């Protein structure tokens, strides 16, 4: 589902003739397969969209100022929608620091929440299986709280956001090993 949304957003951008030589959307779709890397992959793709909108795309002739502005806004919205398809954010072991690569995506979520005050989101914090269950419960909560604070700072209202921690109880991927653990240390945004 997230892939089709992203593809659709990109299709919109491309059909508006705004992105000249847009980098392949494959980055985005493939990125979803690899843990952790999906955030940065989308960030890269998103960066391309923004770049295209601001520079080369808009310099094309034949559009009025108003049309150009409209198109610019549409492109921005499309880019943000594409970013918002990403709803899972990953963390390093025993930390609750939001990775730099996740910031633009979370800002897109925050703006969306700001523009839609009736929208609610539930943040579910998780940890990998290592360490103790109760500490991991607190760690999952700290991760969810970190994301909540970030969203609020960037425009969302606190009342729109609920947080819950499951600690190590609900892994995204079963099993052990660095790759598995990396996918399980996460906060998921669930829009209702």
């Amino acid at each position, binding site marked *: 589902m997230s892939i089709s949304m992203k593809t659709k957003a990109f299709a919109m951008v491309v059909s508006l003739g705004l992105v000249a030589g847009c980098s392949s959307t494959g980055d985005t779709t493939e990125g979803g397969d690899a843990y952790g890397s999906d955030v940065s992959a989308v960030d890269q793709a998103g960066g391309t969209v923004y770049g295209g909108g601001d520079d080369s795309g808009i310099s094309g002739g034949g559009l009025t100022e108003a049309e150009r502005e409209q198109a610019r806004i549409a492109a921005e919205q499309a880019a943000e929608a594409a970013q918002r398809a990403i709803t899972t954010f990953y963390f390093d072991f*025993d930390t609750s620091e939001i990775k730099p690569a996740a910031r633009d995506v979370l800002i897109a979520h925050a703006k969306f929440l700001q523009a839609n005050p009736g929208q609610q989101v539930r943040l579910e914090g998780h940890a990998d299986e290592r360490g*103790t*269950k109760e500490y991991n419960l607190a760690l999952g*909560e*700290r991760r969810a709280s970190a994301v909540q604070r970030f969203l609020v700072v960037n425009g969302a209202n606190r009342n729109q956001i609920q947080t819950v*921690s499951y*600690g190590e109880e609900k892994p995204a991927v079963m099993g*052990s090993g660095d790759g598995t653990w990396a996918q399980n240390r996460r906060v998921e945004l669930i829009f209702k």
Partner: protein
Amino acid sequence: MFLDMNDRPCSRSLKAAISGAKRWLAALVLSLASLHAQAELMITISEGVESAIPVAVVPFKETGVMPEGERFSDIVRSDLTMSGEFSTLSPAKMLSLPSRGDDVYYRDWRLLGQRYLVIGEVTRVGDRLNTRFEVFDVASQERILGETAGAPVSSARSLAHYISDKVYEAITGVPGAFSTRLAYVTLQSDNGQPLYKLQVSDVDGKRARVRLESREPILSPAWSPDGRKLAYVSFETGKPVVYIHELASGQRTAIADFPGLNSAPAWSPDGRSLLLTLSKDGNAEIYKMDIASRSLTRLTTHWSIDTEGSWGADGRGVFFTSDRSGGPQIYYMEREGTEPRRITFGSRYNARPRPSDDGAYVYYVHQREGAFHIARTNLESGEETVLTRTLLDESPSVSPNGRMLIYATKQNGRSVLTVITSEGGSSYTLPASEGDVREPAWSPIVR
């Protein structure tokens, strides 16, 4: 329920009794779980017993119709083996099968290298079982215990565990913990959905009973000091809430349902209050709740994670986990309001403290070279000892007599329970018949 008679068991130092004999029980599987009771755990003695005391438990003489299932003396034998402190002689190797003191030929047992001998008989009278049992020191040729006890037929297993407790105490000088129970959580897949079950069983995994079933996680079961109630965390409402569950009636009370975390319940030794981890005031902090009035006292104030509180043996001090130094470490707050003192320094990750009842040690989860073990620190000397060699260990719980430790670990990708001696020797494993078993909690000794 029991009739206690005759002499008090004489105390002996276990250390003095430990023989140099090295005995390895190679992967001996005691099939204690019956096929019918799918909820039960299976016992696997997974590691040999070194320097265990050789004990012969002679099959008890049985008079009248015995309850179906295991033989009485088989339960006693497996209890003693499970403790990790004894190696028991197979009845097939016994040269004689005495049931009375007059019939004991010490030479037979000396020849077999036995240090202690347990004999007895069990007689059915109506719906009751009466038993008489004796323990002999083979070397000194002395009787060190002689007792009688009785119980309803329906409590045959309880009676056998009671005998094990008395035999253990007669030999080691420390009360046995075989009559205690385990609480734990199993997780299995049910039509592709997770199914959590809070269960209570005998210490050997038998007589398991499901106390709570949920599609959402259950964790951190904690026994009340009287052994009648469990406190635990259940996500059944979509968030962590702490419940108190009265086992006899099944009555449950949501005792902590504040915004945010409600977790890590631990009973005070007097049973009147609970330590809880709540995040209602911003982040995970430890509070004390007076159960009757539900009034809260906040014990920690720090921006870091403070959790996993556990009362020290004196009932005043509190051990807990805090990452105030940058990673989780064990701290001790001597009295409410005093500055916590850091206990662990040996590695970057030490969490979930469980002090022993005698106040000598604190047990916890300890990370070393990427693996998670159970370790303990001697509170007087500060010396740290790593007790386990398994790699993803958590949830240590000390037996109430301080001699055994149960914890959860991974075996072939499944979560199992493992019991070791509190010094880290020997072990047996309690895997679930299906799926995972985790979060063990050893009940107190209830008199």
